[in-house]
């Protein structure tokens, strides 16, 4: 290493260079490596995508580079920013000069990262004054300029707003403005768009790209969404169980992945063209239970004896091609054959199937402090036997309300919700108990919808108990059957929800919903809290259940790609109105409503054909 230890010669072409970074968590005598032997490099003007599922060490790597880890963490290896070397236990003064000036960071939840009781203008001005050493008056001018640069509407007005008065996307813009205040050479973006709606997400992604072009800063973009990576990144480093397993240019990784895990991730992504996602079996090993050999070996189809015992040489995320695998894959990702299409058009002579659930000009009001708020209005749609209907929309579009109307959780204020010709009974009435046997819900968060103090088995059996179905032995047998059909091993019956993974929890919830042999399953963002590889397997399970048990599904989601891969029909919602309704493939190929086209265009897609902005890198 050249130069003095602390202050390095300014190297503006490489704002970040990490070599051999190992970060461990230490409590008492217990020590566990979370990130192991990570090396990566970001050049000026480059956007490096750091990809991997939860628990792979992406965020810890970024936090280590900014010295943001707490005292319980230990760091080995080297992190060099443009001018400074970050060591283990860096001094406060050293960090103060680094943060904001050499590197800045933006987070997933921008509204939580801003001070809720201070006006945007004041927060920005303070940061600018501190980082640039200018007077408050000047800082105010710069703050305004920054807000303009992040394309904030009405920047003068916004200076006087509090964070809660802004939308999620606007808050993220403010966060980016704060991050830019010290003209950093490097920006860490930790899932900056994950909590945003797709249309807002695409705006923020565009903003990050244009700021990169303008300032030539390097960006480390942490995400789990390969579609987003394809949109914004120039190069990619894939992390698994604390190590970088593959790196390379975004085109090479997307088109010809060489590590089986990368391939698995890409295959897990649903696409707008209807690729049926295939998940990866198993789950990421906990940091203290990583195997001695390749951490991916237990989930890898191609694993051989060598993989279990030896660690493949680490890949380096320096933009060059490298892969940490003994038996890397060769050749392009051959996605030539179109997978079976989820929509089978009905032939004319087939009898028209029965309508199960239908909403007829339905509206729903919520009581708020300022009076009634109309969540949805004039909704007319129906679910026929065997249909898989996707209800798509952004947050606040009223898509969940449709689920609630169908389940009898909310009453219709106008119009009617009916099930097999009869009105949907309200939750809490005696009619609802019988109705519950036909229509069931799979909610978003599986951990929240299972009783933490009851075993999985008893909860799966519970619906049978409630409805007095079968004897104790019969219920036991049915429980086994249900666990199996949801892809769970029978031993899990004795476990408690916190003892099993998120994917297994969601399977248990599905098993419980299926106990009463319902005709309709309403899934409200049922996979939104899961990793992509797990999400893909849940989608697979739902498709199988549809086939085997003749289940009709209402799939409420914000992800058009999932709708495409699972559903036969799509209803597009926007601010409480149904804007488009029809069969999936015709609508995705030729959307009629401009809003549908906008949604489709905003959706990041691993198969998108427009090339990412490679030409801007030197």
């Amino acid at each position, binding site marked *: 290493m050249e130069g003095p230890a602390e202050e390095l010669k300014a190297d503006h072409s490489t704002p970040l260079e990490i070599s051999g970074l190992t970060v461990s968590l230490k409590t008492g005598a217990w020590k566990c490596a979370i990130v192991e032997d990570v090396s990566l490099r970001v050049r000026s003007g480059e956007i490096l995508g750091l990809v991997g599922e939860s628990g792979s060490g992406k965020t810890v790597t970024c936090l280590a580079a900014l010295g943001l880890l707490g005292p319980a963490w230990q760091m080995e290896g080297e992190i060099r920013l443009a001018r400074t070397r970050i060591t283990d236990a860096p001094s406060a003064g050293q960090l103060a000069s680094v943060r904001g000036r050499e590197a800045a960071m933006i987070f997933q939840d921008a509204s939580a990262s801003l001070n809720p009781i201070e006006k945007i203008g004041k927060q920005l001005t303070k940061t600018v004054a501190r980082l640039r050493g200018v007077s408050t008056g000047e800082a105010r001018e710069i703050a305004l300029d920054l807000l303009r640069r992040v394309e904030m509407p009405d920047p003068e007005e916004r200076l006087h707003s509090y964070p809660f008065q802004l939308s999620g996307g606007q808050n993220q813009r403010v966060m980016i403005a704060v991050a830019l205040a010290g003209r950093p050479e490097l920006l860490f973006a930790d899932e900056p768009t994950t909590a945003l709606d797709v249309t807002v997400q695409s705006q923020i992604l565009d903003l990050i790209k244009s700021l990169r072009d303008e300032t030539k800063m390097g960006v480390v973009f942490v995400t789990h969404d390969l579609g987003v990576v394809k949109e914004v990144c120039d190069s990619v480093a894939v992390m698994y169980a604390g190590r970088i397993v593959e790196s390379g240019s975004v085109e090479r990784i997307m088109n010809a992945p060489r590590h089986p895990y990368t391939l698995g991730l890409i295959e897990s992504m649903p696409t707008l063209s209807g690729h049926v996602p295939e998940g990866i079996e198993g789950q990421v090993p906990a940091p203290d239970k990583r195997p001695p050999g390749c951490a991916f070996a237990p989930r890898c189809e191609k694993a051989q004896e060598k993989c279990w015992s030896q660690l493949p040489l680490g890949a380096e995320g320096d933009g060059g091609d490298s892969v940490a695998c003994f038996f890397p894959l060769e050749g392009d990702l051959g996605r030539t054959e179109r997978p079976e299409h989820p929509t089978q058009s009905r032939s004319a002579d087939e009898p028209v199937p029965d309508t199960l659930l239908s909403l007829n000009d339905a509206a729903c009001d919520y009581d708020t402090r300022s009076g009634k708020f109309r969540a949805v209005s004039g909704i007319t749609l129906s679910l026929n036997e065997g249909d898989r209907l996707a209800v798509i929309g952004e947050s606040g579009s009223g898509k969940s309300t449709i689920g609630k109307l169908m389940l009898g959780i909310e009453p219709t204020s106008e119009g009617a919700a009916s099930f097999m010709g009869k009105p949907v009974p309200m939750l809490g009435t005696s009619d609802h108990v019988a109705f519950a046997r036909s229509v*069931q819900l799979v909610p978003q968060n599986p951990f929240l919808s299972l009783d933490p103090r009851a075993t999985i088995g008893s909860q799966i059996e519970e619906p049978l108990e*409630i409805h007095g179905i079968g004897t104790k032995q019969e219920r036991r047998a049915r429980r086994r059957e249900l666990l199996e059909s949801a892809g769970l091993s029978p031993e899990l019956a004795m476990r408690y929800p916190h003892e099993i993974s998120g994917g297994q929890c969601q399977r248990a919830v599905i098993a419980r919903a299926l106990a009463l042999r319902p005709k309709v399953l309403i899934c409200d963002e049922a996979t939104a809290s899961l990793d992509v590889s797990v999400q893909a397997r849940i989608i697979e399970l739902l498709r199988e259940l549809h086939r085997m048990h003749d289940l009709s599904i209402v799939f409420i989601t914000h992800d058009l790609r999932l709708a495409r891969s699972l559903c036969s029909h799509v209803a597009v919602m926007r601010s409480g109105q149904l804007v488009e309704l029809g069969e999936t493939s015709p609508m995705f190929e030729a959307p009629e409503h401009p809003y549908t086209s906008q949604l489709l265009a905003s959706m990041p897609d691993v198969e998108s054909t427009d090339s990412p902005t490679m030409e801007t890198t030197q």
Partner: protein
Amino acid sequence: MAYADPSEAFERRSSTQVAIAHVIASPVIVKMAMLWLIMILFIAVTARWIMPYDYQQTALLSRLLPPGATGASGDFHLLGTDHLGRDLLSRLFSSIQLTMLVAVFGTFFGAVVGSCIGFVAARFRGWVDDVIMVLVDFQASMPFVIIALSVIAVMGTGNMLLFILLVGFQGWERYARISRGMTLSAVNHGYAAAIRLLGAGTFRVYLRHILPNILAALVVQVSINFPETVILETSMSFLGVGIQPPNTSLGNLLSYGRDYLLNAWWIAGVPGCAIFFTTLSMSIVGDWLRDVLDPTTSSGT
């Protein structure tokens, strides 16, 4: 697939084993407090059999004997005697029994009633909830002793059952608040809503699912309330509106001793210490319980 399932290394321990492990790992002061409480509980249960003399038997020749003295009839008094020559140890045992009886049943009653009121508020919402919450606020802003005294003033002294219920009622508003708040959060999003959608009735949702989940918080509240109940009982008895002679509680003992503080300190000192150490132990164990039962500080497995 040796590493595929992170729960393989997981070993199942029964809840008894977990509890024992927690007790063994507890700090010394907690162990001492638990030991004291076990002793008090033992005395409360066996008082009738282990007391050396009849606690009502007077011996005017052996009045105000100090601890360790031998009376006129040759009786040994470990803790001395009171102003009527009654054996203080026997009276102490009898008092502990009655105080504990009032505190245990009273606390239990208060916890059940308070939690149920909270459940009712959360279940019906609307005006029921409003009325209950106003009562809760009303209760919280008024010393319970005043209410207890007015009830006794109207109903008269000497009714033991009434007294137990009255003392136990103390703190009901805190149970109500806890159970209402936690029930609301469970009902609105989460497992309770999911179970209701399966067709479950109110009782199943509340008793089989919500109660076990909020039990830990209620148990901690019991451990905070219990010493307060003991103190309320003793204060009422001290004032002469609680337990009536010939029955005796720690508060009665204390009030007899008041007149002899200067020349026979033990009459007030012994029950005073008993009250002090019991409530202190209860608070220490309660604090420790709160830490152990808190899901954010223990992993649960």
